[in-house]
């Protein structure tokens, strides 16, 4: 026995006793792996499934103990009630508006800035790029107070401007970095060939770089949209009137109102429905553009 383990160690560091043939052991390992992966998939999905099911329950069923899984009589009208109880339609529209305009402005201006960083030579470029990258570390709290004071002086509080206008000025370090990394992978020969044909800088940007960068632009757009959709702190601080709320702060308002309301009125099922409706566009977007999405995250992670 001892001799056997000793010789075994010479060929392989795996010292599992050889009750099974190598093939059987591989099969067992495979089976365990499947169980683990399927099991974790289930655990990860469970909160979703439970929330969607809960959003279809009546309040009294939601508070039943032990909890039920499948709603005894599904209440799809819960979703309509959210729109009646609070201005959810307006909030959705506001969120879409802020996220889409912010994304367009951010991606377009980041592409222009990234073009400059990737293709032009001028004094101070590398320093400026380092400064750009280092702004990613800055906690938002450092700039938030002065920005609040500035926007308040400009009369921009309780408008969408603070959420939209800044994105038109470069779109932030992350987007610039992402697009610059992508532009660097496009051969410069293409620019130079176009230049010989007499193309100017802007034409090279529009007719060569942009068409070749559609995957990267799509990635940038998706990531930005999701970030804006999810954003909590900025809208929460810059927006006051409920008619201008985004979904993120709207749900939190609904929840706060709910917990202050008298205990006989329960809105948890509606809060669940609202959360499902807030998550759905993001998940749909993810499924529509999964390819770009994964590639973008990986690109920033690996080449960073």
């Amino acid at each position, binding site marked *: 026995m001892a001799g056997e383990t000793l010789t075994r160690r*010479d060929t*392989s*560091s*795996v010292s599992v006793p050889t009750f099974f043939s190598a093939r059987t052991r591989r099969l067992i390992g495979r089976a365990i*792996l499947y169980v683990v*992966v399927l099991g*974790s*998939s289930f655990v*990860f999905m469970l909160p979703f499934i*439970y*929330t969607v099911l809960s959003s279809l329950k009546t309040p009294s069923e939601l508070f039943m*103990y032990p*909890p039920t899984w499948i709603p005894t009589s599904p209440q799809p009208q819960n979703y309509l009630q959210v729109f009646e109880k609070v201005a959810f339609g307006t909030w959705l529209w506001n969120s879409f508006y802020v996220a889409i305009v912010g994304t367009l402005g951010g991606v377009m*201006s980041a592409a*222009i*800035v990234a073009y*400059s*960083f990737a293709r*032009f*030579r*001028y004094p101070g470029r590398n320093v*400026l790029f380092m400064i*750009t990258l280092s*702004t990613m*570390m*800055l*906690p938002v*709290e*450092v*700039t*938030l*107070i*002065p*920005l609040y*004071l*500035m926007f*308040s002086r400009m009369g921009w509080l309780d408008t969408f401007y603070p959420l939209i206008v*800044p994105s*038109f*000025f*470069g779109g932030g370090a992350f987007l610039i970095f992402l697009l610059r990394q992508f532009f660097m992978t496009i051969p410069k020969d293409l620019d*130079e060939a176009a*230049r*010989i044909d007499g193309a100017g800088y802007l034409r090279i940007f529009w007719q060569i770089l942009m068409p070749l960068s559609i995957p990267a632009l799509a990635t940038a757009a998706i990531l930005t949209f999701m970030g804006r959709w*999810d954003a*909590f*702190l900025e809208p929460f601080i810059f927006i006051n009137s409920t008619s201008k709320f985004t*979904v*993120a*702060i709207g*749900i939190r308002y609904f*929840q706060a109102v709910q917990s202050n309301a008298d205990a006989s009125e329960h809105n948890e099922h509606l*809060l669940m429905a609202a*959360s499902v409706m807030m*998550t759905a566009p*993001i*998940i749909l977007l993810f499924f529509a553009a*999964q390819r770009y999405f994964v590639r973008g*995250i990986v690109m920033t*992670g690996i080449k960073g």
Partner: protein
Amino acid sequence: MSIRALSPRAPLALRHREAIAGYLLLSPWIIGLIAFIAGPMVTSGYLSFTRYDIVNTPDFIGLKNFTDIFTRDRLFWPSMMLTFKYALILVPFSLLGSLLAAISLNQGLKGTALYRTFFFLPHLTPIVAAAVLWAWLFNPDVGPINHMLRSWFGADPAPGWFRDPNWAFWGLVIMAMWGAIGGNSMLIFLAGLQGVPQELYEAASIDGAGTMSKFWNVTLPMLTPTIFFNMVLGIIGALKVFAAAFVATQGGPAYATWFYALHIYTRAFRYFEMGYASALAWIFFAIMLILTFVQFQASRKWVYYAGEND
């Protein structure tokens, strides 16, 4: 063939033209950098030495905000410690989870793309929605988690989660892990695993290395840059925790989830102590800078960059 216009020895006029065009294209960002980042930083740096309630003009008080923070503020140290505790628990465990998830998704199982999506979906859930969702799952009386704990493990009394000062923190950690394990770091690990050259594994096999030995001696060293990247971003992200706690627990109960960002927010936008809150924010920034610097220094000891001579 080489294009003269772009080479370093190009005529001066052309290089000037290139530089001018470069600056012009860069200008939106320069304006943005000054207006929305550098300018506000200078302002908040100045405000941190003042007392400022928005209504009256800022009143210069020297270092008083800072001395008050360190000596008088009863929530400063607890919130700082809590925030670090959160990062120190969340980041290692979620990185380990991400790594294990990535490894198991890298075994060529059937339906991998589907599992990857399942793992990733929690990460896509907006934080506010996740907070609402988990507040319900953690409902102490009728929530499914406590029901499970009661019926499977006989937990009695079951945890009070977001209503119990001893459990609220752990509820937030679990909620954050749900979103983090299958998130960006898992995708980045997965790409890192796929980027390990096959030759290394083949060479290790020839040397007689088994599965575990290959993992420790090939996979892990080759992944260290990825681990480092995920760690630095993970820590910065964890220290900034705000919305999850704000929506799920409002910092309570009994300040049990009073994270540093909540402290800054409260001082600034509830008490309108803009000077004091600016000082709090700068302390936060300084700590983050130091921490990141330390991590980069320490990384030389354990991060292996292939292709770099050593």
